[in-house]
């Protein structure tokens, strides 16, 4: 069986890639996709640690994380649509004003 550390390292790499996407990209949709990558990296950690502890709790919390990710994607995409109507752009730098 593959050691647990392998899964943790892979999960850390995926999380760092997601962080890089949030920091580096100038497109709101890609930023949301990067957040999904980070959520999935955490899911992988939960399932791997649950497997090595012999408990199903890791999979249960993964189920809840997926639900939260779905809610986050729905609200986030609705916000993106609303923002796009106002500014005709997806560049986060265009949305620096608190009020318009």
């Amino acid at each position, binding site marked *: 069986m593959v050691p647990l550390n392998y899964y943790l390292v*892979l999960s850390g*790499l995926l999380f760092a890639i997601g962080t890089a996407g949030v920091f580096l990209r100038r497109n709101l949709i*890609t930023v949301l*996709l*990067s957040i999904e990558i980070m959520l999935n990296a955490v899911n992988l950690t939960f*399932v791997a640690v649950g497997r*090595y502890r012999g408990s199903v709790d890791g999979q*249960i919390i993964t189920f809840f994380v*997926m639900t939260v990710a779905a809610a986050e994607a*729905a609200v986030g995409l609705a916000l993106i649509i609303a923002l796009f109507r106002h500014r005709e752009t997806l560049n986060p730098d265009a949305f620096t004003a608190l009020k318009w």
Partner: protein
Amino acid sequence: MDVLAFYAFAAIAVIASLLVIGQGNPMHSVMLLIVSFGALAGLYVLLDAPFTAVTQIIVYAGAIMVLFLFVVMLLNVPREEPAPPGVSTLLGPTGMRIGAVLSLLLAGEMLWALGRIGIGWFSQGVTAASVSSVALIGSGIFTRHAFAFEATSVLILVAMLGAVVLARREHF
């Protein structure tokens, strides 16, 4: 065999994720993210979690990514705009460099920490049957975690209402 499959899925997941954040076209990004989620589902199968793997495919690669694709097609912005000149030095190339350094630092930090800890405190030889049973997952959700489950249903309702209200046009 296990190790080979792990390396294959891990490589697909990492490369696809890197391409997701390296793509200029959001449509390609979404497609590559589906590939990455498929590889993660393979890893869940390796971890004796078939229920989670199927949920990953159906909910993530199926539902959530279709939602993303729908919005990408609706907005129809194929290209990322170049940085406008003279916004701020923090948001320009210097800011990009700071972001790259920070995320590399995060990756290095996590690899260093994982290299240092020992994980001998996990009992070896856990049987696959104790974690792969859907019945155990179901009884866990509906007994010990019933409150979290109910709270999740309220969350979904609020998210649904919020999405409808936010995406609605103000003037009909």
